[in-house]
């Protein structure tokens, strides 16, 4: 099994190398003049419908977007428990079923609470 992980790791390295080379191709082709390169101030300014951008872009953005990421982390923990359980369920039988149901019930209570409090609404 370790060799499988080794293969995967090597494959990741190969793919990383491939995608880096993809991005670097234009730099290499710049020298013979195949890829044009005429930078200017306007060209490297941000595009915003043909106008100068006004005001800062990297601002303290609305937290609502990250909120779902926080929820994800909570539920990801659930998944860590669920997957091994799902694999072994047919061996565990009924005795393995109820603990996870109660676990899901606890998480579900939190979910219902969050829903009632309006945490799932986009405001």
């Amino acid at each position, binding site marked *: *099994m370790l060799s*499988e*992980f080794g*293969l*995967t790791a*090597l*494959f*990741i390295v*190969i*793919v*990383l190398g*491939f*995608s*880096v080379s*993809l*991005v670097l*191709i*234009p*730099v290499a*082709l*710049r020298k013979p003049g*195949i*890829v*044009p*390169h*005429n930078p200017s*101030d306007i060209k*490297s*300014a*941000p*595009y*915003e419908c043909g106008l100068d*951008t006004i005001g800062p*872009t*990297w601002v303290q*953005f*609305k937290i609502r*977007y*990250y909120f*779902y*990421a926080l929820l*994800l982390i909570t539920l*990801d923990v659930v*998944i860590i428990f669920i*997957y091994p359980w*799902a*694999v*072994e*369920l*047919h*061996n*565990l*039988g*009924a005795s393995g079923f109820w603990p996870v*149901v109660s676990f899901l019930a606890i998480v579900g209570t939190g979910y219902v609470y969050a*829903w009632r409090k309006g945490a*799932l*609404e*986009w*405001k």
Partner: protein
Amino acid sequence: MAELILFPASIRSELPFGFWLHLAIFAIGIIAILLTSVIIFIWFERRLVGRFQLRKGPNRAGPFGILQSVADVIKILTKEDIIPSRADKFLFWLAPVIAFSPVVVMLAVVPVAGGALLADLDIGILFIIAMSSITSLGIFTGGWASYNKYSLLSSMRVVSQLVSYEIPLILSLVGVVMLTGSLSLDEMVNAQNVPFILLQPTGFFIFFIASLAEISRSPFDLLEADSELVAGYNIEYSGMKFATFYLTEYCEAIVLSTLTATLFLGGWQGPWLPPLVWLLLKITLVFSIIVWIRATLPRLRIDQVMGFAWKFLLPLAVLNILLTGSFVAFWPEAPSWMIGIANLVLLIGYILFRSRFFKPGGVTVGAS
């Protein structure tokens, strides 16, 4: 393709440099087949959308216009590479790499024939899920690093949308895992005497919808909503870096089709034809459905997308786990048709029940 037939799966143990040979063949094979199929599928999508819109689609470059995507690649490869002066340059360079690599890596654990896959990880599904999350990180990085307000907005949508749909996506596969009793994709295909779409219609329903959102295809294409966000997260990217994002998008669509085919449609299994052909046929079928959806449906709004994931799909996924779990735990010898019918009843009942109370449009969002 030919290599796979010439070198059977046991090559690693038989030949002296079998390990490296295996790696080389599969690595090159996966990348080559993926890139070729992206080129063909882009052309295929444009032709198919053309048919949906009662027109011809690209037909001038090469026979049936099949070289159209090749021309696009050549052009985009030799296009100027613009780096915005105010961008975070390191992340700007890094983002396409982060986005593109995991998509290809996912294919390492997908079998193309019996036992023929790069690495038969016993945590195959978890590996795929882990890798698919990294792509959204790359897209977020790209959108943020560009120093552009539209792409910033797009990358913020990535944070919420892509992350939200991961939960139903992962939970929908638990049923499949239970029925198989393994996380390895190879064993999952082997376990499918009956395609899992018949045993797990609910799981398929959630998986397909959630992965449409994961790869941000219509009707969940909020990341690149060109009517709102001009071009989305890749607005500042030009040349090959833009092409890498474009490639990522289509690779994701192909990988999604592959996963759907592998997990729910029986993978490479099928009579008469060689396994790889069957797999490609099933991939094409799923991809055509994605294109069909794209050509038909309008786009949802961000709060509707979120509400759909958290209020509709998530409870359904949990119910599916409980239903399938109780079958596996209490009645392991249940005939498979019964599991399938129970699952279908759950899906239809849930949709009918919830559609009376929950409508994406019913969520009032009046002016605040």
